[in-house]
């Protein structure tokens, strides 16, 4: 048995945990639908990035066995098998539970939950819609021996239409891309009666082929290789190179074919041959293709009753009074915000206030992923307009956000900001904001560091922790990191921060080594770490060594974990849990007992080799005693979860914890919200919170 789990298979298990949330019958239908859509979106990304990599390796003839004991071919087979199992679970859930529940709640989707034929009124309405809005934009692509097989966009639903000229025996094929802007089209009459885009187009597809008889039309979807191939060392202009590559991504090799179950073998063979997709990567979907389209239903504000009760973000007590200058609050003492339990507003306020403050000289910020109409980008542009020196490090290579980031980069540059498009061969993943302000007693630097992106949208659904500080040592470190990243300076010696790719891995290794030493001296050794993924081999071997020395290690890992916990003589003192719940667990927290010193650090980095070697990451200490207590309380709350935590066993199985009979149900995210509410005092009332109803599963405990 290998000492490590495989990365791809571990990832698929993470997605299973996401699916598990959707399978929970105690949840409200739209909450379940959201997890089904997330599952599909995750799977798309897996196919585009991971599976495509395995396909390439197999094509190139790699047969080497990895640390987990798998060959690329073996992994492809294992992945395919697991994907099929998960899809079966997903679509069984859709057909048997979600669609009926939606119907019951008055949401009818013709062709799915609604089996009846479309009424004449509906058909008339749709026919008119087709004529007015679709006919002109639909572009059927005929396939015949005289033309090459047309290019099909990835992740778009298409119809494969078999047709024959009136009076002719011979069939022909055509492909019709379905516009994806509106996944569900409203029907007249009842509110929330829908038809899917593919059903709608199929109903009128004959109008596109005048003089032909439609024999059949089936929907299918392909997924292409989504990795960018940027030879950065040779890129003269990173911006235009990535722009070109983003365009090329749309033309990556097809990897997966999803099709309606009713499609016959002849049609399938036709598609597979032309697309070059092997049989084992075509998936018959027993339901609607592309469940990511269901996000549009989930986000319908009028369907609140079908969602879990919301937990409105609380105002942070330190920044509660909008009339107070945010600089005063930060100067007074370090401040911490807990996302999404608290509002993201202080981050926006800091940039906003800085942009208008005549005392502010400069603003520097990293942007990895941010929202479409980001208030941060707007404030930075304003700051530049107001004469501040604004430096923005836009990471163009943030996967699948490249195109969006290019747009902001250009906007910021146009506004006069100094924009740096990342580093060659490295992604800037650190989340840092620096405001330089001239005050009466001299220059003061205000710093915001976070475990998560400066993104007002994801701040509502990702758990992250942000630190605001005006301590000079932090200011100087952050200034110097910016100098390093903007090419002003070589790496200096940091005072408070630890950075990757320079010394972050060594920092962790040294901390583990010290815990081992303390145990050897008869003391206690303990590590609690929370992150998104564990797959760096050196770190895992160091963790095994620490475990073998008797250090107690508790890991909270939301996603991939290649470390095998609880194995005799290897990792007996290591436990791993994963929490998948309404919020995406995203914060990275590292706690070391340190002979009673109880060191607490926050970071942008996971324990992945890419974080240590190919990304710019930061780790920073939590210095204020009350903040340290909050973070340690949070870790204890996470570890005590018995509703959404899964224990990873030594054989790779994640077992969802059940609330033991007679014990209190403990939902970490709910508890943390309540914890923050309590800490905030009157803040909860101001946010309009009166009570939070328990879910059935919690009541059951």
């Amino acid at each position, binding site marked *: 048995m290998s000492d490590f789990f495989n990365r791809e298979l571990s990832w698929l298990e993470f997605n299973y945990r996401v699916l598990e949330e959707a399978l929970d019958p105690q949840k409200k239908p739209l909450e379940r639908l959201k997890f089904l859509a997330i599952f599909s979106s995750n799977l798309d990304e897996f196919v585009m990035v991971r599976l495509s990599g395995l396909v390439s390796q197999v094509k190139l003839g790699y047969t080497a066995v990895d640390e987990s004991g798998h060959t690329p071919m073996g992994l492809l087979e294992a992945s395919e098998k697991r994907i099929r199992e998960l899809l079966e679970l997903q679509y069984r859930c859709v057909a048997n539970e979600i669609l009926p529940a939606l119907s019951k709640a008055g949401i009818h989707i013709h062709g799915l939950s609604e089996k009846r034929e479309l009424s004449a009124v509906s058909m008339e309405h749709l026919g008119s819609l087709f004529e007015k809005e679709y006919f002109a934009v639909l572009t059927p692509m005929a396939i015949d021996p005289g033309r090459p097989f047309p290019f099909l966009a990835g992740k778009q639903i298409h119809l494969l239409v078999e047709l024959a000229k009136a009076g002719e025996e011979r069939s022909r094929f055509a492909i019709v891309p379905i516009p994806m802007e509106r996944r569900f089209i409203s029907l007249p009459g009842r509110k929330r009666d829908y038809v899917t885009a593919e059903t709608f187009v199929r109903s009128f597809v004959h109008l596109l082929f005048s003089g032909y008889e439609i024999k059949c039309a089936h929907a299918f979807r392909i997924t292409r290789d989504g990795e960018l191939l940027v030879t950065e060392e040779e890129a003269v202009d990173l911006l235009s190179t990535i722009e070109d590559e983003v365009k090329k991504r749309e033309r990556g090799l097809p990897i997966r074919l999803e099709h309606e179950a009713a499609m016959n073998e002849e049609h399938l063979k036709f598609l597979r041959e032309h697309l070059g997709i092997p049989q084992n990567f075509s998936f018959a979907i027993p339901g609607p293709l592309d469940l990511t389209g269901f996000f549009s239903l989930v986000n319908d504000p009028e369907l609140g009753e079908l969602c879990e009760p919301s937990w409105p973000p609380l105002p942070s007590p330190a920044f509660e009074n909008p009339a107070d200058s945010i600089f005063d609050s930060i100067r007074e003492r370090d401040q911490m915000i807990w996302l999404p339990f608290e509002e993201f507003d202080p981050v926006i306020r800091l940039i906003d206030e800085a942009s208008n403050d*005549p*005392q502010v*000289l*400069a603003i520097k910020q990293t942007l990895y992923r941010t929202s479409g109409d980001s208030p941060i980008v707007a404030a930075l542009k304003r700051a530049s307009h107001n004469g501040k*020196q604004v430096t923005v490090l836009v990471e163009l290579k943030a996967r699948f956000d490249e195109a969006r980031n290019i747009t902001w980069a250009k906007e910021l540059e146009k506004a006069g900001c*100094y924009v740096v498009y990342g580093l060659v061969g490295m992604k800037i993943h650190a989340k840092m904001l620096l405001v*330089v302000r*001239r*005050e*009466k*007693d*001299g*220059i003061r630097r205000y710093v915001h560091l976070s475990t998560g992106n400066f993104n007002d949208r994801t701040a509502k659904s990702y758990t992250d922790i942000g630190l605001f500080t005006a301590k*000079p040592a932090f200011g*100087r470190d952050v*200034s*110097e990191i910016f*100098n390093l990243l*903007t*090419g*002003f*300076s*070589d*790496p*200096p*010696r940091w005072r408070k921060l630890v950075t990757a790719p*320079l*010394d972050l891995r*060594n920092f962790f290794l040294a901390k583990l080594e010290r815990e081992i030493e303390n145990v050897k001296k008869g003391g206690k050794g303990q590590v609690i770490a929370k992150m998104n993924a564990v797959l760096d081999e050196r770190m895992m071997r160091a963790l095994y060594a620490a475990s073998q020395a008797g250090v107690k290690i508790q890991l909270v890992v939301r996603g991939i974990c290649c470390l095998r916990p609880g194995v005799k003589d290897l990792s007996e003192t290591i436990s791993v849990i994963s929490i998948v719940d309404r919020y995406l667990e995203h914060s990275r927290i590292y706690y070391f007992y340190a002979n009673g010193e109880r060191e607490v650090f926050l970071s942008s980095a996971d324990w992945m080799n890419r974080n240590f070697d190919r990304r710019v990451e930061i780790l920073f200490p939590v210095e204020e005693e009350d903040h340290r207590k909050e973070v340690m309380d949070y870790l204890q709350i996470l570890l005590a979860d018995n509703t959404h935590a899964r224990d990873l066993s030594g054989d790779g199985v994640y077992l969802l914890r059940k609330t033991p009979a007679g014990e209190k149900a403990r939902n970490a995210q709910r508890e943390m919200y309540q914890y923050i509410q309590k800490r905030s005092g009157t803040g909860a009332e101001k946010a309009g919170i009166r009570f939070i109803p328990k879910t059935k599963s919690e009541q059951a405990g």
Partner: protein
Amino acid sequence: MPSAPPIVAALEIGSSAIHMTLTQFAPEGPVVLEELGKSIRLAKDAFSRGALSKNLVADLVALLGKYRDACREYGVAEICAVATSSVAAAENMDILIDHIRLETGIEVEPISSLVEIETIYLALREKLSLSKEKKFPAGEVRGMLKIGAGSVFLTLFDGEHILASFTLPLGVVQLRQIFESHAQEEIDFPTYLKISVDHELAMLASSFPVKQIEVMYAFGNEMEALQKILDAEFSNDASPSSVSSETLEAFLERIKGMGREELVSTFGVPYDLTEFFFAVTYILHRVSLFFESGSVEIAPVNLRDGLFIRHLRPDRDEKDLLRIERQLYQDALNIGRALRFEEAHALTVTEFALKIFDLAESQHGLGKMERAYLMTASILHDVGYAVSYAAHHKHSFYIIMAKEFFFITEREKLMIALIARYHRKAGAKSTHPDFQSLSRREKMTVLKLASILRIAEGLDYQRVKNIKSIEARRTESGIVFEVETSGNVFGEIYSFNEKKAMFEDLFGLTLSLSVKNETRTSA
């Protein structure tokens, strides 16, 4: 916007990197806001090609443009920018400096290695005076070592002043280039390095009596990287900035034979520093062994710290003048002794010269700095004997010009050399270009001081210090020097009368000598 304490930038264009420190001078004390540093191998071009390449100049100017932007970001009041000697060695340095000024607005001052050393020394002295832990016991000698691209600079000092300074031809870039241009198969670079260092240390041993020094302070770009690595690899050293000779030796063993990539991957040495990393560490180790210092203190201060001190105290105050006087005295003695001068005569003449200077203060109107020039010139006036008696005053001139004096400018050194030059024979002429290069005021200073030196020299004509004391009395037409003597002072009286003309011409006064204890008085 409130008025905030001023921020000053100190910018150093060094042999292998550009560094800039931004410091805010608040009433409570200076606060370093930022330190920027970027490797850029200027010395390599300067030594191998004699000039900086176009690409390198473009890179440097672009980087300095960024540094100027960083200064603007903080509203920096002034940028003190210098280029160190190894960069200044490039033929196109003047063009480069002009280019920098035009492109970035930064005025760069090229400085000599001497100025560099004394500036670092200023910073070190300030640090040591502020440090409670590092008391500086009387008589203790410490050293400063800067391993540069073209040379290694070694400076020894005690609690009062710089005792001596040596420039060893062990600059790492030059050593490497010499080795590569004369590469032989049977010898590798470490062996060549050992031979070179052995040779220079043997020479050093014969030229300076101090062998053991208490603390050796090391400076240079590689030092900070070295310290970082040694901290991580040998964390048992008591102080993070102190590295023991044993640690250095153990580390050298580990890096011996390592390639550049290996240094990066094993120890995280910045790639730009890898080329000379072994050589720097080796020289550091050998020098620390040579002086039996036991350990080396790495980079406790840097050139920029000294630039800030200079910026804060642009004018010499009383303390500075006293310190400079002591330093000049030490430097002059070192030079004289190295050339086996007649020390007793030199010191007697100096004593008389300073006495006359003080007695005639109201006549010459010169200050303490000029007094120090006179002292230095007096000590060294006959140092030209080392070449020959004939025209020895001329030899003294160029010997002084060839030597290094701390804390004075080149112009001040020229004045000292000219004072010594004119202590005998003909006075200054319009055909003397060095003298003519001085301003009118400087010329007068030289002439006044030379005239005093002439008289003082005459009063020790027989070199046996027959004159025991000198007093002065002002008369209606001039000054009467009353001297107490022992023995026959015929020669002194003769010489006084021969040499007083210059003084009399300059000051419009008649000089006479009144000899006590001997029966005659000369006028």
